């Protein structure tokens, strides 16, 4: 393991191309200057981080892949699969025409221009200490370029794992969609239970004019993993980006998602679900920037919390002055299933332009007694009625995910969380 200091950055710069060395140095300057959030910052007010990033080390090499009960080859027919272990791209192939895969650590020379144009372009290093650390210490990155007009008819699977205790790793996925290109991705993220790790993934999605991107990412980290993920998508003219976000596992799982509708006529859709139990914390922050005219976006997240778990949804729809004829909506629905659990929902609108249609809605509450009464009047026991409502609540999101393949896994995980809590009388 290497520590998070100047020496590590300098040593990495020795073998890297100069543009990359400069990026790292720049990231390190911010890392040095910024400090860990204390909870007094508005963006971090619900999260308690009781560690320093420097308590952890960056892995030297990729660890041993996790033994898995879900074999991705059974999930769905796929066009390609990539494996990012402890921040290293260990495996990447795709047999669809028009798709180029570039690995930062091993192909820096051969793929220099593609890498230089895509790495470190979208997520600024100064957003927070995690983004700065990512820029300074990320060991590798996977760039997936889908060329102009290429249509990939099966999803590309990206399997991100953290395997080594005591480490902080920086998995990095960059997707560059060419003009009128079309592709789908399933990003699965996990780590073993019982191992203290920090992971700071970044996913950058650049969608050119007329392109269509579908991506589902599922955070299924172990119970002692703190995950702070940054994700950003920019959309060109008449392009479409559809995202699915699933949060099931982590000690603390945070998602910072920015969607920039830059091109006129672009549209985005985000559907998401999270389910916290034990003392889990899920913190979802979604910012949608409407810059172009005639842009539309929809954000729809559902979450549930039981035991002492806590969830946060903070959404901002920002309509910039030139974004006339914007149409946008954000919805967040939360179920609080135990007395000790908490759900916060903070949807915001910032509208700097007239001639727009905007809306937001948010709810926080227990399962509705009226629905329970209806089901029980049909002969279902109380427990059975609760299960039917929980499944129905999440099924709406599961069915709307932009890429299929994870449905059974997510359904089973959601039901398991609730059924085990029910069996132990925790809800």
């Amino acid at each position, binding site marked *: 393991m290497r520590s998070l200091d100047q020496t590590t950055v300098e040593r990495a710069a020795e073998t890297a191309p100069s543009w990359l060395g400069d990026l790292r140095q720049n990231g390190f300057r911010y890392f040095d200057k910024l400090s860990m959030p204390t909870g007094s910052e508005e963006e971090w007010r619900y999260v308690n981080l009781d560690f320093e990033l420097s308590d952890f080390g960056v892995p030297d090499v990729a660890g041993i892949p996790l033994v898995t009960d879900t074999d991705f080859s059974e999930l769905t027919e796929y066009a390609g699969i990539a494996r990012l272990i402890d921040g290293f791209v260990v495996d990447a192939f795709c047999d669809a025409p028009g798709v180029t895969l570039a690995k930062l650590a091993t192909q820096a020379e051969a793929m220099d221009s593609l890498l230089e144009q895509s790495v470190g372009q979208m997520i600024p290093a100064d957003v927070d200490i995690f983004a700065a650390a990512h820029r300074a210490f990320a060991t590798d990155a996977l760039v997936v370029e889908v060329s102009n007009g290429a249509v990939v008819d099966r999803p590309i699977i990206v399997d991100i794992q953290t395997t080594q205790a005591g480490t902080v790793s920086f998995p990095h996925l960059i997707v560059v969609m060419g003009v009128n290109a079309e592709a789908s991705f399933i990003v699965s993220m996990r780590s073993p239970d019982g191992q203290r790790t920090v992971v700071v993934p970044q996913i950058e999605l650049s969608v050119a004019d007329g392109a269509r991107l579908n991506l589902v990412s599922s955070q299924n980290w172990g119970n002692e993993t703190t995950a702070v993920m940054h994700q950003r998508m920019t959309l060109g003219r008449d392009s479409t980006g559809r995202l699915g976000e699933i949060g099931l596992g982590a000690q603390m799982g945070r998602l910072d998602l920015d969607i920039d509708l830059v091109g006129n006529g672009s549209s985005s859709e985000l559907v998401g679900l999270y389910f916290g139990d034990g003392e889990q914390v899920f913190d979802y922050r979604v910012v949608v920037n409407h810059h172009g005219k005639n842009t539309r976006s929809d954000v729809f997240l559902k979450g549930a919390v039981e035991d002492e778990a806590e969830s946060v949804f903070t959404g901002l729809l920002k309509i910039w002055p030139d974004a006339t004829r914007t149409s946008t909506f954000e919805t967040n629905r939360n179920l609080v299933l135990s007395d000790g659990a908490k759900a916060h929902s903070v949807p915001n609108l910032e509208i700097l332009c007239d001639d727009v249609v905007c809306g937001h809605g948010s709810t926080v509450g227990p399962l509705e007694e009226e629905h329970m009464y209806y089901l029980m009047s049909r002969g*279902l026991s109380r427990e*059975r*009625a609760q299960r*039917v409502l929980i*499944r129905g609540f999440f099924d709406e999101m599961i069915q709307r995910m932009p890429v299929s393949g994870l449905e*059974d896994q997510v*359904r089973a995980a959601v*039901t398991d969380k609730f*059924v085990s809590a029910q069996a132990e009388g925790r809800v």
Partner: protein
Amino acid sequence: MDNWVRVAPLEELPDGRGVRVEALGHRVAVFRLGTDVFALADRCSHAEASLAEGDVFDDEVECPRHGAAFDLATGEARTLPASQPQQKYEVKITGGDVYLALQEAS
């Protein structure tokens, strides 16, 4: 006449959950509870949801869509909204492999 169709080795079936099996024109939900295996028609008699995706509680499976419960051993509908029993299939375990008795669907 019944055909005995081999499904899988017993230890490959997940314990306490269902799997869907399609053979000879039948869609069957097969449940393993320890060393016992039960098989019912997969389509719920109420609204055609897949019982293989349902949860198993003791000796019954709960339909994932509307919560109807069926007796795993007999297929009897134990709760509304289902009122009709599920077709039940004979199962045998020979040499560690699970077999289903299926009639050729006409």
